[in-house]
């Protein structure tokens, strides 16, 4: 058991991954409850989940918040056209700001889309997000860099991503959501 790491190679691990996707059971011994569902002992579940956390397959384990009801109502995708040879430096500097919630380099897409650096800012309102964007531009030396700010005005669909093929568990599938 301890040597099997890949959920794709062990159906019990695939079932475990599937079973915790929708959430940990809210009981004093959640890992024992999960083990019962998928045919593993409590110890095996604890070992496996610990390894997944340690190795980064699980990025975080805990509360996954819905940002809108918590008062984060303004969500801006800010995109920049920065020189390719500086994008790494700038991206790292940008991501050090606490209000930046995601930061990625992505490909440009022709004249329609010249931007190669994307960051997300979640804030309480547009006014404060705009102020944060100005601050970010100053701090990263990007005040004269072409950029666009795309606020979201409607969210049509929000659910957690599902990564694994359906595996037979008899488990119910509740809605899975993740912060956008």
């Amino acid at each position, binding site marked *: 058991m301890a040597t099997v790491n890949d*959920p794709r190679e062990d159906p019990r691990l695939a079932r475990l991954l599937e079973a*915790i*996707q929708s*959430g*940990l059971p*809210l*009981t004093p*011994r*959640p*890992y*024992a409850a999960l083990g019962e569902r998928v045919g593993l002992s*409590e110890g095996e579940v604890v070992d496996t989940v610990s390894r*997944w*956390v340690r190795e*980064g*397959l699980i*990025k*975080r*384990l*805990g*509360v*996954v*918040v819905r940002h809108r009801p*918590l*008062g*984060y109502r303004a*969500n801006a*995708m800010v995109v920049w056209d920065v020189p390719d040879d500086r994008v*790494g430096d700038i*991206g790292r500097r940008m*991501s050090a700001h606490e209000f930046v*919630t*995601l*930061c*990625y*380099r*992505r*490909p440009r*897409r022709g004249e329609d*889309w010249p931007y190669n650096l*994307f960051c997300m800012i979640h804030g309480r309102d547009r006014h404060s997000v705009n102020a944060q964007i100005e601050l970010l531009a100053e701090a990263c030396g990007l005040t004269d860099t072409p950029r*666009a700010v*795309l606020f*979201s*005005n*409607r*969210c*049509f*669909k*929000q*659910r957690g*991503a*599902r*990564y*694994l*093929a359906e595996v037979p568990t008899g488990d119910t599938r509740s809605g*899975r959501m*993740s*912060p*956008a």
Partner: protein
Amino acid sequence: MTETERAVINRLQGGFPVCERPFLEAGEKLGLSEDELIGVIRGLLDQGLLSRFGPLYHAERLGGALSLAAMKVPEAEFDAIAERVNAFPEVAHNYARDHALNMWFVLATETPERRRAVLREIEAATGLTVYDMPKITEYFVGLHFAV
């Protein structure tokens, strides 16, 4: 929101223990009993403040593929197109944004091949060009919502 709920949200966005009695262990640091912590989390879920209590996976490490994609959708057809796009189970989020590229969605697929296939299927279903923008590099941020 109570002070206790606030503390649980601020301090448990990660780092939940993996051991026999994790609520007991996490509760001690928050000054809550095992039952109290379970009750607070259940209450936050019931109020819709949490989408779940559990893991955030690293999609690529699971062999999956994530991509951000955008389309230019004529305003009059927006809702109809959104419905067609959202009908794909691989579409995880879909947002309307203020730009000529006005529909932005995240695709989560089990494999990179499947991602390309779904993008083609979405183009066929909508008659619109999909601008696919998979990430090249992710710069680490500590995604944390303080309340």
